């Protein structure tokens, strides 16, 4: 119960904080419009492309990953720059409970991208906004956000010792967009990409959101999102514990 309270308080605090950041809002609300526009223009130019709603939903979830890739990997570095990392590590609360709300809030900022992209598609390109299963659609968005945010937590934990973490994390933006079926069907990619994509939350988050909107089985991707969220949390906890001890031993915690 205490852990849930810490998580929720941290999440609300960071969500509000990030919502006031012009950079994050540009990443969350404007960049997805760029990719949505490109996808609309490309798909509209031929008659063999998927539907524009398919493109709109893909671009929207791309926004969730964008904010995560841009900022979650560097979440620890950010605390280091603010000079509070040592205080956070020294606090009696487990570090994962401090870090998880940050990365999930970063992914949640991507929710703005869903609103802006769907509205943009409707107003400028006449994309129909018919959702097959509204209730499941409403459930699949937070499920996608949570699982992608926890993937961000895993990245942040991995990069705790790496000063250039945020840049490496940003470099993952396009690769994850490419291999998780956001705009490109997995069937078009080489076969070896499949197993990698299945281990990534954005694949299943995207599948859940798209199927809830367009039609299809939503239960399986939602369950996989939940399972991956648990797996990411366990892995992140192990990594954080290990790297935190290593950083303390080497006295490198606050070094930028």
């Amino acid at each position, binding site marked *: 119960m205490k852990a849930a309270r810490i998580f929720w308080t941290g999440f609300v605090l960071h969500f509000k904080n990030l919502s006031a950041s012009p950079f994050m809002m540009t990443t969350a609300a404007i960049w997805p419009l760029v990719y949505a526009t490109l996808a609309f223009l490309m798909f509209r130019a031929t008659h063999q492309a998927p539907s524009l709603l398919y493109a709109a939903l893909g671009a929207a979830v791309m926004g969730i990953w964008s904010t995560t890739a841009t900022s979650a990997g560097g979440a620890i570095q950010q605390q280091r720059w603010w000079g509070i990392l040592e205080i956070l590590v020294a606090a009696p609360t487990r570090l994962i409970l401090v870090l998880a709300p940050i990365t999930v809030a970063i992914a949640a900022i991507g929710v703005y991208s869903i609103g802006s992209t769907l509205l943009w598609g409707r107003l400028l390109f006449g994309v129909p906004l018919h959702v097959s299963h509204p209730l499941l659609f409403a459930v699949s968005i937070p499920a996608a956000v949570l699982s992608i945010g926890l993937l961000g937590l895993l990245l942040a934990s991995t990069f705790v010792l790496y000063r*250039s973490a945020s840049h490496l994390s940003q470099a993952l933006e396009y690769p994850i967009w490419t291999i998780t079926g956001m*705009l490109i069907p997995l069937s078009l990619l080489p076969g070896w990409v499949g197993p990698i994509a299945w281990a990534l939350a954005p694949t299943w988050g995207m599948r859940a959101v798209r199927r809830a909107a367009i039609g299809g089985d939503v239960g399986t991707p939602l369950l996989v999102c939940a399972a991956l969220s648990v797996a990411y949390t366990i892995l992140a906890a192990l990594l954080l514990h290990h790297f935190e001890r290593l950083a303390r031993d080497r006295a490198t915690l606050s070094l930028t």
Partner: protein
Amino acid sequence: MRTWFRIFFIGGVISFRALFSWIRPSVYIPTLLLGPTTQILFFAYLGRTAHLKSDSWFVVGNAVQSASLAALFGMGFAIDGERWTQTLSAVLATPANRAALFLGRALPVLVNAAVVASTGFVGGALLLGFRMPWSSVPTLALLVLLASFACTGLGMLVGAVGLRMRDVPIIANLTMAVLLIFCGVNVPLDKLPHWMHMTAEGLPVTHAIDAARRVAAGASLGSVETPALTELGLGAVYLLVGFMLLRLFELQGRRHGTLDRA
């Protein structure tokens, strides 16, 4: 004249090395050297999804456009970075020739932009089987340099705006987005609405991409003379306007004491 060149070359290089934290390999490689290739892969596969154009078409367009990544952010940070390190007032208080000062900062950015764009071609060749005649390589290199020059000119404009506004990364991001959508990088110009097509004519990269695609298909330098010269002209105009705005905002900043405040 000797001082002018000293400030231009040595000042420019020192400023470049000092201001860019991504000059570290651990940052530079994933961000600037691998970035263009991942962008190319994404759009080439998106093109396959839409059945729009060949992989080579996307390789050339995105590789040339990726020069803007290094040029816009590079020039933006070359100015804004001084404010971050609180050296902007000191730099602008010097009697150094402003042309040498700012153009010196532009040269390493231009070279870096060309290097970044070149990695896109290498990535395209390795991962998507992009091929072109070896005889076309020198002409393509020239076109990449022209695109980098034009983008650096636009970057100078972004840097100048950064003297008046905070959040240079946002301005650079939005400018790059405009180039990505308008300049025929991923959508053929004739498939864009007329007003977007017309806007693209006045933007850097559009003409270089058009020329580069033709050269990659085997065309000679002579046959792409018009778009190449247009790209050069556009770059010169953006550089000049950017430099004039820098001077104007510098004078206004001095007058109102707002250089470090933006």
